[in-house]
């Protein structure tokens, strides 16, 4: 059976029906966007930082094999075990084998979008490994059985009572606790014993540095540092595109990352892992999972520049009003809509259409990915690959024909019932019908501009030219 495309529109409609959640979601993310703007205004060199970040990333992607080899050599020299995973399955197998070798049954981990991509928890848990997310938002999502709805703030679509209910069920706390402070404290108290007894720790990572074999992890809660330093076994998973050439390049990226993401100058923790700690063992899994193929897509390879700040999501008026889960994918929002189709073109064929292509995303992107232009290009690719709904394709085909024939078009438009008389009524009616669900139709007019012009200008012209025209 062919996989069905994600129905973003329907999921969004459900999201919109819940006013308190919708209002909070929109305002919270808009506030993050505004805080980002405030940080930008404090840095006169902001646009230069963006240009440099983009140039460094494009250079690195064009030289990716060499930089990965350099990274690998340096990391190995520092005592890190380096693994390569072609896809999610191989990634999970590698992690499972490392854990098995150490007899590790309890894994604590910080947030990693790559492990979400690989659906790693679902692989490890049946094999007897208890996986505990240590990031508060990610833990809330794990306990609720949901994917992260935002790449930086995974539970941003939830309100305090939602969290209270989830914690009550899992931590035996008060289901009516309405204090975020006390709920966060509950998580701290619940997490500490798990952290202190865990057999292994896992982190994602924001950057790989080829020059030194370092990987850099940016968090605010300190949970990645706890996950990495308390157990003696540390496994890190990063996408192969996360690399930069030189340690000095980190200055550019660290200055942009948290300012773009949350509007804070830097994350509370910026940690550089260059080798195992004393008595410890460190592994890094470099994950491809479609990235090397994406590098070959002429119109879309620059999406690999993404540093996962989420600024495009925060600014996106559609994302703010539909919620991350409505995208039905690991990556949501504008960046999700341009990379998800590379994972599954049919399933995510609707996502490039879940956008007005307003372009705000492109202009907040710290690495200057032309997101809205890629959305436009994806629409073309999807149409060419026949991944558009039949009705839409037919309408566009007929509309396109009609627009090329002025006489027919004029017949259709007169009376202002646009195209209704020439297109099969049931098709058009069904397709255009949603306009009126939450909106009034434009008011009918006495005459079109075309008729007005004919009456008021062509006549004059004819008279002035002696009736020749």
């Amino acid at each position, binding site marked *: 059976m062919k996989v069905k495309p994600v129905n973003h529109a329907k999921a969004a*409609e459900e999201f919109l029906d819940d006013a308190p959640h919708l209002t909070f979601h929109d305002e919270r993310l808009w506030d993050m966007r505004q805080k980002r703007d405030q940080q930008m205004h404090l840095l006169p060199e902001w646009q230069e930082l963006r240009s440099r970040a983009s140039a460094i990333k494009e250079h690195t992607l064009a030289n990716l094999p060499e930089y990965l080899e350099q990274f690998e050599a340096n990391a190995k020299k520092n005592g890190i075990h380096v693994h390569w995973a072609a896809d999610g399955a191989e990634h999970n197998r590698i992690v499972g084998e490392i854990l098995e070798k150490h007899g590790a049954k309890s894994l604590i981990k910080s947030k990693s979008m790559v492990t979400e991509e690989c659906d790693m928890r679902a692989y490890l848990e049946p094999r007897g490994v208890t996986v505990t997310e240590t990031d508060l938002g990610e833990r809330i999502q794990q306990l609720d059985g949901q994917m992260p709805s935002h790449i930086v703030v995974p539970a941003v679509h939830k309100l305090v009572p939602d969290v209270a209910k989830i914690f009550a069920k899992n931590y035996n706390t008060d289901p009516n606790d309405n204090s975020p402070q006390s709920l966060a404290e509950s998580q701290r108290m619940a997490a500490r014993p798990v952290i202190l007894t865990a057999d292994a720790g896992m982190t994602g990572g924001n950057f790989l540095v080829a020059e030194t074999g370092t990987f850099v992890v940016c968090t605010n809660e300190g949970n990645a540092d706890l996950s990495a330093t308390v157990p003696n076994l540390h496994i890190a998973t990063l996408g192969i595109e996360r690399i930069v050439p030189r340690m000095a390049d980190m200055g550019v990226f660290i200055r942009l990352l948290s300012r773009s993401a949350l509007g804070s100058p830097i994350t509370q923790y910026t940690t550089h892992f260059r080798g195992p700690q004393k008595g410890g063992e460190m592994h890094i899994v470099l994950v491809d999972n479609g990235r090397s193929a994406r590098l070959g897509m002429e119109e879309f390879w620059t999406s690999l520049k993404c540093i996962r700040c989420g600024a495009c999501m925060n600014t996106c008026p559609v994302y703010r009003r*539909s919620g991350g889960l409505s995208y039905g994918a690991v990556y949501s929002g504008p960046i999700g809509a341009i990379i998800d189709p590379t994972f599954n073109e049919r399933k995510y064929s609707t996502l490039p259409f879940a956008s007005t292509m*307003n372009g*705000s995303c492109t202009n907040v992107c710290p690495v200057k990915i032309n997101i809205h232009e890629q959305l436009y290009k994806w629409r073309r690719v999807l149409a060419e690959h026949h991944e558009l709904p039949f009705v839409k394709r037919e309408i566009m085909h007929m509309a396109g024909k009609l627009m090329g024939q002025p006489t027919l078009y004029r017949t259709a438009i007169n009376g202002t019932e646009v195209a209704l008389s020439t297109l099969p009524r049931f098709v058009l009616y069904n397709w255009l019908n949603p306009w009126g669900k939450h909106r009034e139709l*434009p008011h009918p007019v006495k005459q079109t*501009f075309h008729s*007005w012009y004919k009456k008021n200008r062509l006549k004059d012209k004819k008279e002035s030219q002696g009736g020749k025209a």
Partner: protein
Amino acid sequence: MKIGLFIPCYIDAFYPNAGIATLELLEKLGQDVEYPMDQTCCGQPMANSGCNSDAAAAEALFVRNFAKYDAIVMPSGSCTHHVRDNFDAIPQTEEVKHVRKNTFELVEFLHDILKVEEFPWAEFPHKVGLHNSCGTLRALRTASMSELGEPYFSKPMDLLTKVKGISFATPKRPDECCGFGGTFSVTEEAVSARMGLDKVKDHYQAGAEYIVSADTSCTMHQQGCAERGGVPIRFIHIAEILNGARS
């Protein structure tokens, strides 16, 4: 300079006054303007839906209609954006290149080409909120955008401030998209309508009696949302104000 006037389909059919005002305004400014009677559409709806090859007939017709003019002017930012930046369903002949290079949105034409200094006939004794469509804001760049933190500029405001009696309301999120988005307004109608309602409420709460815009597609959608949502605000094309409309 011979000007070809393009009137987008939704203005032709639903908002002819915006088209008439555009024509009259250009004539008042002494321009030689013609409206080719065989025009239909610039091809944008098909192209934006991904069906680029279906835009070819419309684009070819557009070129047949307008190749003979020195400048092509249209009261629509999004159509201008399509012609200038995305008009590639047909082979890029010299004629096509000429058309694409010489197509202007009305505000930029008045501001950059004609460099109009005054509209002595214009008076609009109302408080208005300016809606810059995303096409004018982020593609044609007729105003500064908040995303870039660049120095403030606004070609539509430069023109509107020359109108007697006009005053301005500033919404909280002036650069936020109103949610029209072409076929998005139908395929994602719930989000689209919500964005539209939020947009008109933002203007209304800022004290605007009118939302003025260079893009009627946006305001057609916003008007629909305002009327359904009970937001008492009116809509007007910038050409109508500059041409001397009083209400």
